[in-house]
């Protein structure tokens, strides 16, 4: 227990991942869902960096990947917030249940 290994990080990452998924599953607020996505992306990043740290492969490719994930997550958040604002402008709320025009 006192020797921290890969497994600790993976379990933590899994836990955060599941929390993120749970947030996505249960929030009706568009921004809330976005927060869930951020949690998931963070858990993934933890995985990347943990594998990079403990893998037998030399180099820091995992960290580079995590860097790109962060960049894309930021970009995604920007677009998502813009979409949320557009949604709010159109239906005057960001309750995703109201944005169901494509509902079959």
């Amino acid at each position, binding site marked *: 227990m006192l020797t921290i290994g890969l497994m600790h990080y993976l379990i933590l990452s899994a836990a955060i991942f599941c929390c993120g998924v749970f947030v996505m599953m249960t929030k009706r607020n568009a921004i809330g869902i976005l927060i869930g996505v951020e949690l998931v992306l963070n858990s993934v990043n933890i995985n990347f960096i943990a594998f990079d740290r403990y893998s037998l492969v030399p180099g820091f490719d995992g960290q580079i990947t995590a860097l790109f994930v962060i960049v*894309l997550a930021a970009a995604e958040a920007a677009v998502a917030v813009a979409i949320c604002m557009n949604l709010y402008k159109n239906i005057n709320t960001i309750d995703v249940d109201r944005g169901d025009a494509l509902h079959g």
Partner: protein
Amino acid sequence: MVFLQRRCSLLAFAGVMAVVLTMPAVAMGQESADFEGVPTAVQGGVLEAVLFYIFGGTALVAALGICLSKSVVRMATWLFGTLGAVAVLYLLLGAFFLSAIQLIVYAGGTLVLLVFGVMLTSKSPWVRFECSKVELAAGGGVAVMLFAGLLSVLTRADWAVTEGATTGATVEDFGKALLTTYLVPFEVASVVLLVVMIAAAYLARQEG
């Protein structure tokens, strides 16, 4: 109840502050372990374990806080806790540069963006949309099931890992890698950012 939640938020905020304040110490501790100037992670010791449990726990609690809070603003605050704690974990894993990026981009950029989003799209910060109890139960069940599945997969897997310490990558290494090996993804990412900037401006613009 509201009072309790508000206190929890304060607690989260306090936790993040503690992280931010602790980080130099952690970093310094690592530096003290290696006087050659190249920072190495705090590895193998009890200190590492203690730090992991504290900040891992913080990240997990904050994540659960996000799950359980009803208000978007609270969720954003709890997210702040998670992001900060994860940044410390990056430090423990020797990813100093990413740790800094995590704080700057996530905690400093994305989170602020989210809060701005909340501000611009809410008639009041306390607006709530709640889903049904059934959905909550189903979501919880699925999440637990998923976690259980992941856990069992993780524990069963035979991870080929090194037990030894590795040196962390410096900013210089990152710079070289991004401009040589990862030049194409780097440029693509820059184009993506440009596109995103235009797209976000277009989407969020005032009509007419």
